């Protein structure tokens, strides 16, 4: 089992831009880390090179080896979670302990409808118009 955990309030993983996300963070490490950091990131994957951006960082100073903390943050307006044939953009929370760099990741969807925007190929889009 991963020694770090991110539990989103109510188990919700799909959000709209500007939503406030509440979560419980817990860790159970062998030694007290120097610091723990929660990151909100988006990354792309697909045929081309991967892009990654850390949008927000919440540091937790002087953590004990085992702890549970609650926090909340407001999601940005964009970019939306989307997926097509060539590229997918995914949002995630990452909790990282330093210096060990133990980490965990919780993927989320950020889009106006709360579900990932699906890009159609031009041919298919024309056919359905």
């Amino acid at each position, binding site marked *: 089992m991963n020694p770090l955990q991110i539990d989103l309030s109510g188990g919700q993983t799909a959000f709209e831009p500007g939503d406030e996300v509440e979560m419980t963070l817990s860790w159970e490490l062998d030694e007290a880390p120097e610091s723990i950091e929660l990151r909100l990131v988006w990354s792309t*994957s*697909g045929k081309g090179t991967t892009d990654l951006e850390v949008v927000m960082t919440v540091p937790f100073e002087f953590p004990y080896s085992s702890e549970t903390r609650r926090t909340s943050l407001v999601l940005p307006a964009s970019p939306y979670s989307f*997926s097509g044939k060539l*590229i997918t953009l995914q949002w995630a929370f990452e909790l990282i302990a330093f210096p060990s760099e133990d980490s965990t990741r919780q993927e989320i969807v950020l889009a106006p409808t709360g579900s990932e925007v699906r890009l159609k190929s031009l041919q298919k889009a024309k056919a359905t118009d």
Partner: protein
Amino acid sequence: MRACDNPFRSDRVLSVRYRFLNGDDWESILGRLDELQYRAAIVGLEGAGKTTLHEELAERLKSQGQSVCWLRLNRENRHLASRLIEQAFVDVTTEDCLFVDGAEQLGFWRWQRLKRRAASLAGLVINTHTPGWLPTLVQCETTSELLHEVTGELTPDPPSTALLDRLFDQHDGNLRLCLRSLYDLKAAEAEA
């Protein structure tokens, strides 16, 4: 199919480790590098795994306490080569090995100058398309069997042997291009 579900997406392809052919292994490679006094070239055609091997070599050396400084050159940044070399020599110390990715992007004179400047460094390891720049550490080669093996690692449902052999021939053994074609084929197959 979502791009992130395609088994041939770039982050998965990049996670494939270099496979030695011709009976080499890390012990023999590191021994040879030591014999060559850390001045050597990884040679091979495009898509033969030169950069993959180079990066794995950097990790090996780092884990042995050897610091490595990278100079990465490609067709897109070759016009900035002078500036990138200057930047690399600002960052590098005599304790470091300089790793040059894409050394073929340097012209003859620029390469000679770089080699001279790097003489005081702990090492100079380059990758390039043709031999003759520095003593060859590894000659990277590909085979269609290697493409089969890599494909099998990426997907439990690999394409037919005939298709893989055809792709291998079509791309002149460039595995990177073969895997990109497989990405497109998988996406098209899912769409159909």
